């Protein structure tokens, strides 16, 4: 029984009008929902919202519409409630996927989109967070700087905005490189 559902979930997200988007109150909710759904095998993708529902600093989750009920039910189990579920006909914006690395002596800086994180390669201490323009950037810097990369809170846990999501991408790459 479980295998049947798993096979169904493992299908790639279909293209065209059979896709929908889940709209959430903020990026933190998007990140939580993404983690839950991806961990359980749903082929969902984080995208930019279409212009008609775009308010500012937002993300949506694209999913196969046919699985709406089961996805909503699973999210409700972990107390995540989308604000809207909207069918999609147009192409959605893809998040940036370019990540740059730059070394300054003992320090490594990683940039994803408009966000940068810099770590002392020897001590693994986060020495700086820079870039961005949303209000959680100074807050994230305050929470993360002068902490070890494996002890600092992750942007996905304390941030809210697209800048936090971009910083998470840079952070994930940093963790991967620091563990090599």
């Amino acid at each position, binding site marked *: 029984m479980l295998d049947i559902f798993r096979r169904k979930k493992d299908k790639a997200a279909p293209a065209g009008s059979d896709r929908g988007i889940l709209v959430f109150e*903020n990026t933190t909710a998007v990140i939580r929902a993404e983690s839950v759904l991806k961990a359980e095998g749903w082929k969902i993708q984080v995208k*930019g919202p279409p*212009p008609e529902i*775009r*308010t*500012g*600093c937002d993300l949506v989750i694209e999913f196969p519409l046919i699985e709406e009920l089961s996805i909503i039910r699973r999210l409700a189990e972990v107390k995540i409630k989308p604000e809207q579920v909207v069918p999609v006909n147009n192409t959605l*914006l*893809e*998040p*940036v*996927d*370019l990540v*740059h690395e*730059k070394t*300054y*002596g003992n*320090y490594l*800086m990683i*940039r994803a*989109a*408009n966000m*940068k994180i*810099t770590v*002392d390669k020897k001590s693994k201490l986060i*020495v*700086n*967070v*820079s*870039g*961005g*323009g*949303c*209000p*959680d*950037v*100074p*807050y*994230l*810097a*305050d929470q993360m*700087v002068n902490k070890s990369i494996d002890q600092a809170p992750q942007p996905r846990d304390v*941030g*809210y*905005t*697209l*800048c*936090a*999501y*971009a910083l998470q991408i840079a952070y994930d790459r940093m963790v991967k490189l620091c563990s090599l």
Partner: protein
Amino acid sequence: MLAIVGTIPDEKFPLTGGIVSLKGKKITIRDWKVDVNRGTPAMIAAAIKTLEYMGESNPYCYLVGDIGSGVGSKRLYRHLTDQIAAEPFQTLALHYFQPDVRLFKKFLTAIKTMPTQPRLIGDAGFMYVAKMGGDAPAFDLLTPDAGELAYLADEKSPHPFYTRGFILHEENLVPDLIKRAYRHHNASTYMLVKGATDFIADKNGIISTIDSPKVEVLEAIGGTGDTITGIVSALIASGLEIVTAAATAAKVNRLAGSFAAPTPATQVAAIIQEIPRALEQVLG
């Protein structure tokens, strides 16, 4: 007088307006003291250092606590929309804020009813929301870094997070991106593009570039983009023409960075302390 709008990364910080002062590594507004680390407090501190050097009064700031939920920003958007029309500010610098296109457009409409049209400077969240809503040309000066310039140049991107790869690619030359931003009406009257080389431009192209002293590690230090925005805002408020103010600010920020002998672990407060010395070298 210079007015600055931005956020403080502390949810308990109330919606506050007033003259801000700087003592050591803290700014003070009414009874609140805030560390100058990065973001709007760093921008304000750099502006104060510059205004003091120029013999001008400290800035009036509208601040609110917001750690990214947008709750504080929304309150301040509404407050400003109700209040700004009666204010006499000649220079208005808009900084870290939660982008909200609908609320920003209302605020911008209110700015247009001010008794004297202020010179409008935008950076950070306010620059993002201006471009999102097609309002970048309403600004006299935007101060993007090279990555943010790519966002302005990408007519389809609503946030730097969605800048398309072929535009964001490092090999894209800044002058080409500036042209593209102007072509799609996503640029301000003047642009100060911060980076390894700083560019000052308008719709006709590059006006000047500043590339020395070269202090590569400034890119890694949070707040070095904020300080340049603070310096240029203060210079414009002190009466300098925008192009002159932008070139001066770029030089001063580089020199202040150089004087601080930074590493990637340096915090921006150390660079802010060097701004008066840098101003003296450039303007003295």
